[in-house]
């Protein structure tokens, strides 16, 4: 692998007011390699990429492209030097045609030659094997195809360096494979690809080398084949290996005859989940396991009345109650952290503090506002307790990393002191370190007597945290598993055999 170096970044420094984002970081990209850039949230991956693409200006250090020093003042200049970037959020216009999306904003011609443009686009889509027609409106393509079109655009701009920033986070397994095929094709053409992802399996499936960053510093560059997964994780987290596996879940409370904190009988909702029975004891951590679309989320949404409840009865501490709206559920001491953090959870423009006190304020009602002093006290307390990395409590939440945003939302619910907390995919899209922190926190809360339902699409994570798994298939509960030594196999067997 001694191929020629197309990009060399040396001694890159970058500080923001109050934070040193990068310190003396080197990065090297060779021709025709796929290079994974790894690190936890806040490790400095995005900052490094933004410097490379001209969005930020570096404080110190040098960038060489094919041996020549370069200095970018704008993304445009970086593009002109052959650096193409494809972001997680697809930066294309859905209302334009596929061909237009490939070519718009590039030519200096004042008039558009549609025929010529469509022909060129068709040829390109063909050669890259992208299943789309040039004249089709982009909005009618699947997300994966849109992603590929964004790549095609970058490639056509003679890019030597292609940056893929979490391209797979909204793709399904099939689509990921298609994307990988495209990446391999580009690699064969000699394009250097920088690949950023949270999915460690993907890194091992496709990358040649890995560069790890932590807290704005370079940890090292490794050949993928020479770096075992567990070592990669520990390098990213900066913790000893034993720490990662140190999480010990709690056993189920011994006596099963005690009154459950929450109990549902034949509960069903408008979202189409079959009537189900469910109960949870004090201090228990359980989870709904199943494939995507098996009704995991729908079940907990029914418990919280986030979807319209259509039948069944609910008991809290053995007492029958009516829960028809999320507010009633909250007043009964149930907290729900939704799956869609961006859509249902955070309010972008509001500060960390305002986001944090939101649920408590709603419960108190609008006529009894929290005093500023109280709010500040709570915020400081939780920022410290959950180790939320934010410049200040007044920072708008949108400028925090995904993992820290998630912690804020978690803190929001903890502040209402629920006795039963539902966490739906609390660790999705956040880095390994924060994941472990959240898992630990869940267990600690349970030890303090809170009942928790924990849902994750990563089964091993649920096995680590949950003492009892309720297995779902096709919107129905097909069985329950409990015990200390469950394996993924057990769950899969139950799903496979379940139902019929």
């Amino acid at each position, binding site marked *: 692998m001694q191929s020629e170096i197309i990009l060399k970044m040396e001694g890159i420094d970058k500080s923001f007011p109050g934070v040193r984002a990068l310190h003396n970081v080197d990065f090297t990209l060779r021709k025709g390699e796929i290079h994974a850039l790894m690190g936890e949230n806040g490790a400095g991956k995005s900052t490094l990429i933004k410097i490379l693409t001209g969005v930020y200006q570096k404080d110190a250090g040098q960038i060489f492209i094919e041996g020549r020093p370069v200095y970018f003042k704008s993304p445009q200049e970086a593009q002109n030097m052959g650096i193409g970037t494809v972001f997680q959020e697809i*930066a294309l*216009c859905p*209302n*334009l*045609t596929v061909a237009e999306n490939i070519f*718009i*904003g590039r030519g200096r011609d*004042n*008039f*558009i030659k549609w025929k010529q443009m469509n022909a060129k686009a068709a040829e390109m889509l063909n050669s890259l094997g992208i299943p789309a027609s040039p004249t089709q409106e982009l909005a009618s393509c699947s997300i994966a195809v849109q992603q590929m079109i964004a790549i095609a655009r970058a490639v056509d701009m003679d890019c030597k360096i292609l940056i893929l920033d979490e391209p797979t986070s909204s793709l399904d397994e099939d689509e990921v494979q298609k994307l990988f095929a495209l990446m391999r094709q580009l690699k064969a053409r000699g394009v250097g690809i920088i690949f950023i992802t949270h999915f460690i399996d993907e890194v091992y499936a496709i990358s040649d080398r890995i560069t790890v960053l932590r807290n704005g510093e370079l940890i090292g560059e490794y050949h993928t084949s020479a770096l075992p997964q567990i070592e990669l994780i520990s390098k990213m987290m900066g913790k000893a290996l034993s720490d990662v596996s140190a999480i010990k879940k709690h056993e189920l409370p011994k006596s099963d005859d005690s009154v459950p904190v929450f109990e549902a009988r034949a509960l069903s909702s408008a979202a189409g989940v079959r009537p189900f029975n469910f109960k949870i004891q004090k201090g228990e951590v359980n989870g709904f396991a199943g494939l995507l679309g098996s009704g995991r989320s729908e079940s907990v949404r029914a418990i919280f009345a986030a979807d319209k409840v259509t039948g069944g009865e609910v008991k809290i501490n053995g007492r029958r109650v009516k829960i028809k709206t999320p507010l009633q559920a909250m007043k009964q001491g149930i907290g729900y952290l939704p799956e869609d953090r961006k859509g249902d959870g955070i309010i972008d423009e509001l500060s960390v503090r305002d986001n944090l006190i939101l649920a408590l304020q709603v419960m108190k009602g609008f006529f009894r506002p929290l005093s500023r002093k109280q709010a500040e006290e709570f915020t400081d307390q939780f920022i410290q307790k959950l180790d939320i990395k934010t410049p200040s409590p007044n920072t708008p939440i949108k400028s925090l990393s995904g993992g820290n945003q998630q912690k804020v939302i978690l803190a929001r619910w903890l502040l209402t002191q629920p006795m039963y907390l539902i966490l739906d995919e609390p660790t999705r899209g956040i880095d390994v370190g924060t994941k472990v922190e959240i898992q630990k926190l869940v267990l600690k809360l349970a030890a303090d007597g809170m009942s928790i339902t924990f849902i994750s699409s990563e089964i091993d994570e649920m096995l680590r945290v949950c003492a009892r798994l309720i297995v779902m298939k096709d919107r129905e509960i097909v069985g329950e598993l409990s015990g200390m030594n469950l394996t993924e196999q057990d769950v899969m067997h139950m799903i496979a055999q379940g139902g019929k």
Partner: protein
Amino acid sequence: MRSLNTSKAKTRLSNSNLLFMIAGIIFVLMYGFALISFPGSFMQFQTFFDLFNFNAALFIVTLGLCVVMIGGGIDISVGAVCGLVTMACAMLLESGMGNVWSALFLALGIGLAFGLMHGYLIAYLEIQPFIITLAGMFLAQGLLTTLHKEPLNVTMPAFVALRNFIIEIPWLGTVNRLGVFIPCEIKPGVIVVVVLVVLYAILMKWSRFGRNVYAVGGNRQSARMLGINVKQTIFFSYVICGLTAGISGFIFLMTTGAGNIGNGALFEMKAIASNVMGGILLNGGVGNLLGAPIGTLTLLTINELIRAAGVQSNLQAIVSGLLLYLFIVLQSVVMSLRGRSKFRLAFPSWLKARQ
């Protein structure tokens, strides 16, 4: 599995074309209804041409606004600017200090001035277009009433000649009861409308600027990432809109021959309504420029229908208002059915909280 579906979707109509088709069908239905209900007047070609003859200014205002709306913006000053231009030009012509050409330049100048100012404030200072053009509307209205309060007839011979100039279509017309053939007549303003429609349609379909307007209207953030100069694009869309409003003022004066403080009143609302009926999405990015004249025709046909029915003229405004509601909801329904997302009313960005 999903990629299989996309190959099927290749033939799917684009949103712009779908809305345009709906607009076209609605116009045909509406005109057909008019033909059946009032064959006496609507069967005559002249009635159709008169829609253009008397409303040329509205057609033109709608065109300019259409460009801005496709770019995701709004300009509610167009009516007031149009009115201001009629009065300013009338005064210039009456004062005897200028000829027809200088009046035309004055019209273009006033339109351009408003366009430049709005474009700069909205594109470069990033202020809400609704508020900025609301201010522009008040400014233009204020200037209009300050200039002259009474109606001002233009008596300059050269202009009167232009105003009364009529183009006859010798091969199209009707035969009256006495058996005399009366050819159809169109006014010069109609020529201007046709020229502008063609010009703007080419601009929006084949020019780099036009496609950039679509991109910006579709997704401003993405457009920026695609290397489009978003601010410049927005700026020029308002300049074009202002300039078009200036032209429409001149054409208005050519139609009525008098400056009046009521000139161009409510044109902004009629133009917005026309564009919506013509399938221009309020959210921006979607719509065919040819929808603008189609939408205007639909609106005018409805108004003519009401007039022909002999009902109170107040009803025109009421019906127009109700139809506007209907069309906006219809747009939302069509778009959300296509997007297969949950039903949601599509509010334009200038009505939403800033992101």
